[in-house]
């Protein structure tokens, strides 16, 4: 059984009298431990598709299931739990909270987890992760004190905080230099192989795409070849 099944999903936006299908009749099946790259022109619906899978927006039609559960049937709270426990997001846009330090930004997802989180464990996990993305010396810095690429890496580290089953990464290496980009990709592949985390990653870099298990091309809301 596939981990994620996207079935004939359409996401339509009403702009004035016009209906725009950001995602149009997309079907996709993702196995546990997959590493999928999504490529496509700007505006082809990549971010929208990731958002649908991640449960931060609802499909207009079709269904998305995660481990046999239809996520569009979940209540608001259940959906929050789903995002918190199963999904690690790396957003296309800056997504750190400016008022929180790097360490606190990393701890943020753990605040929403069920049950009393033991204070010790998340904190040491945050330190491990921030070291893995090469920012150990910035752990008490505020986002405004970091470069764009450094902020990006903090967001990458944060996505792993709650041991997600799936990472949804939207151009995660967009503003990184080549060396750092390669380091991050190696880190992803390591997490994919060793921790069995499923990756769905939007990228414009064809070299990166090549290193994934599977490449999906999107055009005008649809997956090419469907």
């Amino acid at each position, binding site marked *: 059984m596939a981990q994620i099944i996207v079935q004939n999903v359409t996401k339509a936006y009403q702009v004035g009298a016009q209906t725009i299908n950001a995602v149009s009749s997309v079907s996709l099946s993702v196995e546990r431990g997959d590493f999928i790259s999504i490529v496509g022109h700007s505006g082809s619906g990549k971010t929208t598709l990731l*958002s649908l899978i*991640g449960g*931060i*927006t*609802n499909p207009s039609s079709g269904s998305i299931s995660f481990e046999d559960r239809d996520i569009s049937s979940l209540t*608001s*709270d259940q959906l*929050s*739990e789903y*995002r*918190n*426990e199963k999904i690690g*997001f790396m*957003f296309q*846009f800056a*997504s750190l*909270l*400016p*008022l*929180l330090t790097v*360490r*606190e930004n990393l*701890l*943020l*997802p753990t*605040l*929403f*987890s069920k049950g009393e989180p033991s*204070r010790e464990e998340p*904190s040491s996990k945050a330190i491990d992760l921030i070291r893995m993305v090469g920012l150990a010396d910035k752990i*008490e810095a505020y986002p405004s004190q970091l470069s764009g690429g450094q902020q990006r890496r903090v967001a990458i580290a*944060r996505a792993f905080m*709650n041991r997600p089953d799936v990472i949804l990464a939207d151009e995660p290496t967009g503003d990184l230099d080549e060396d750092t980009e390669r380091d991050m990709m190696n880190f992803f592949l390591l997490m994919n192989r060793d921790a069995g985390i499923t990756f769905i990653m939007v990228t414009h870099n064809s070299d990166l795409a090549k290193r994934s298990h599977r490449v999906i091309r999107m055009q005008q809301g649809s997956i090419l070849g469907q």
Partner: protein
Amino acid sequence: MSDQFTLNSMALRNLRRRPLRTAILIAALTLMVSALVFALSFVMRVNASIRLTSERLGADLLIVPTGSRGSAEDILVENRATSFYMDRSLVDRVRKIEGVDKVSYQTYLVTLTGLCCSVPSSMVVAFDQDSDFVVTPWLKEKLGRRLKKGEAIVGSESAFNINLGLVEVDAMLFGSVFRMVGVLDKTGTGLDTAVFISDENIDDILKNGKMTIKAGQVSVIFARIKKGEDLYKVMSDIENSIIEVDVVMRRDVNKGLISTLGDISKIFYLTLILSTALSLFLVWAIFTAIANERTREVGIMRALGAKEKDVINVFLVEVLVLGVIGSIIGIMAGTALSLVMAKTFSILKNLPVDLTVLTRVGIGAAGLAFGTGVCALGALFPVQRLKKLEPLFVIKQE
């Protein structure tokens, strides 16, 4: 600090993010709560005092010589020394009126500063100890015996004026020395500045020739009517059958004062309503701005797994902290104001009742509940709107 990162600490940091805005909100809440505390303190104190002043008389009807109605009120409400007299035989005539239960009487002997007495200008009231139900119930400590000739009890203010405070001090009245043997509780009327003596002393005072009254005269007759009797009927019976007197109803004694205080209370309530409206509007406007400002942050938090209630929680802590700080400062300011006003407002100065600590605590609690309540209410709509937004929509906003 490093190991205590929680949603609450986020809320507190949010408050520090815009200190000026936070200060404005707290100031508005302070204003409102202090207005509430002050108005409540004032109104409760005035109401309790009016009730007490009215009960104080212990009599349902005051009977004075025809035309002296105003003078009687002068004495009872303010401390304006006046004198008016009627014949003591009227006491028995009043007692015989159908429906009258008890009757007592007093004679007002006006003193003038320096002229006759070592007491500052005040009323000397001679009362009949046998029938009295007006004066002695107010003794701070029961005397346990009758006043002897040459003994006096004093109103609370007189006691203060003569710098007595306690008993057993002598004062010169009408050429005789009086020993002060008791002090009355504060009544909030002219009687607080009076000196009370038994009417057995009148003969001596007359003999000394320091007074102009004749023997057998009284100033005011107090009547208590039988239970279930119609007050108005008894009143008009007295007025109709004894043309020499006017009758004043107890509840009318304070009429002017009550309506003045009523008007003042209205002004306070109006101030309270305006400041509440102002606070509500400010909280609403500022939290609308806050909500707009943090839309993206809330979207990110939601995407990371924050539930709607987590979002509300963060804002609720902010709102409560604001509300509690504003209320506490407001309670202190309002209480301080009411204490200062009690000393400077002449109306308040003469009120017999002061608020108990318990009442003040109650008023404080009401202020706290009101302040935080208004704050929460004002923030409710902006925050409700925020939690419902779709995370993706919110995240993409710049």
